[in-house]
């Protein structure tokens, strides 16, 4: 019990003292996760919609693949992207490895199947009269799909929230592609891993509490947007 209380005290003092290192890690975590979910949504939402409303050969196979990708370990994503952007990789010349940009790429890959799958489920669970009704009222296919998005916006918001939850809390991609460089690519999760390995359990737990608080604030904001 003392241990947990001590962690709370440490986290509070870290926040109240405006600890530079902690705020750097929080800022990196939030900005990398935010960009990743933006890119993941920009690709994942149209992908999920397209798979859901169009008929094509191997559709079931594509859905199975998408489900499988949701369970992809973060270190595997990190490994694959590492292979692509490392010096010997096809994009090695861009010098992206151990930068926040590399983390955004990796986390976008992580978020994408989650956003796409949740969107797909939202469309499947929606009323199949939505598109037909919009078309019979003279809407173009694009206008009809936009109306569909409007009707299933809660499901799409859930997709974005789930994707964000996945990327803000992951450690594999951030560690492998960001390199955990202090003040540059260190995130809350990589800082927790580092502090715990150094035996600083209370400090690690304090960072964990801060991570949970950040996740709570972001989800509260998204929930408020959802209710509007």
């Amino acid at each position, binding site marked *: 019990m003392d241990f947990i209380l001590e962690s709370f005290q440490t986290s509070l003092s870290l926040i109240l003292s405006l600890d530079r290192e902690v705020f750097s890690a929080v800022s990196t975590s939030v900005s990398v996760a935010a960009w990743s979910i933006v890119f993941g949504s920009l690709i994942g939402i149209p992908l999920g919609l397209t798979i859901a409303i169009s008929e094509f050969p191997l559709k079931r196979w594509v859905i199975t693949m998408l489900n499988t990708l949701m369970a992809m370990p973060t270190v595997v994503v990190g490994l694959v992207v590492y292979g692509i952007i490392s010096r010997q990789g096809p994009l090695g010349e861009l010098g992206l490895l151990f930068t926040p940009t590399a983390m955004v790429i990796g986390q976008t890959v992580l978020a994408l199947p989650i956003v796409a799958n949740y969107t797909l489920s939202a469309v499947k669970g929606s009323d199949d*009269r939505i598109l037909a009704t919009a078309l*019979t009222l*003279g809407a173009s296919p694009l206008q009809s799909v936009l109306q569909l998005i*409007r009707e299933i916006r809660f499901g799409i918001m859930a997709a974005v929230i789930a994707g964000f939850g996945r990327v803000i809390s992951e450690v594999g991609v951030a560690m492998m592609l960001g390199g955990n460089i202090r003040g540059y690519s260190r995130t809350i999760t990589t800082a927790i891993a580092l502090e715990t390995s150094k035996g600083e359990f209370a400090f690690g737990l304090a960072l964990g509490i801060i991570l949970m608080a950040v996740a709570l604030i972001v989800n509260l904001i998204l929930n408020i947007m959802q209710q509007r």
Partner: protein
Amino acid sequence: MNAQYVITSVQKRYGEKIALELKTLAIWPGRIYILTGPNGSGKSTLLNILALLSKPELGAVTYAGKRVIWKNRELGVLRKKITLMHQSPYLFTGTVFDNVAFGLKARGISGENLRRTVTDSLTMVGLFDFEDRNITQLSGGEARRVALARALAPKPEMLLLDEPLAHVDRESAEIIEKLIASLPARGTTVVMSTHDSQQRERLGGEEIQLCAGGLEQASGWIDYTKDSEFNVNGGQICPVLKMHAA
């Protein structure tokens, strides 16, 4: 004068099942057509084809003298002239105004013109002051009238109604029926499906009777060829089943 629709040798299948097979059917402008027939006879299928939502596997559909090309661009132009009200209409999330304005906005109508047309359409169905009401606050009959106002707002050449009076209270039914009867005079041709045999007399429409569409597949070993006969004046289509051993 061109027929509004001419349907020739149309066949629509759902998997192995033939849902509709018509040799020929013509719909003339400025009339009311009452589509009758038992469940499974293909009434909704025919309405979906007329609404250009469902492409038949075989045959041709001609609208206003031009053969329908089942490609998005061409269909988009034609669909702006035709509206369909489904048997259980879907109302979009939001207010009554949002719903009635939908088809108008899709046609680029905005501002005062949009507001006035929405008000006029709601007045036609007896829901004058319902604009700001959320769709969750509507009764079943009111929802049906909003759907009808929404279908009528763009002033379509063709109005297709799939059992518009099913499960509707008497007050709403009278309003809807009276409105439908007045539509040909306003330049809108109506095709509506119904199970009510007296509706034709009340509305003064012509009857298109579909029979036994698609039921033959249950027997498995029998192959049917269906012919339909259509008399423009009599207005009756009743496919005659011819049986052939497979």
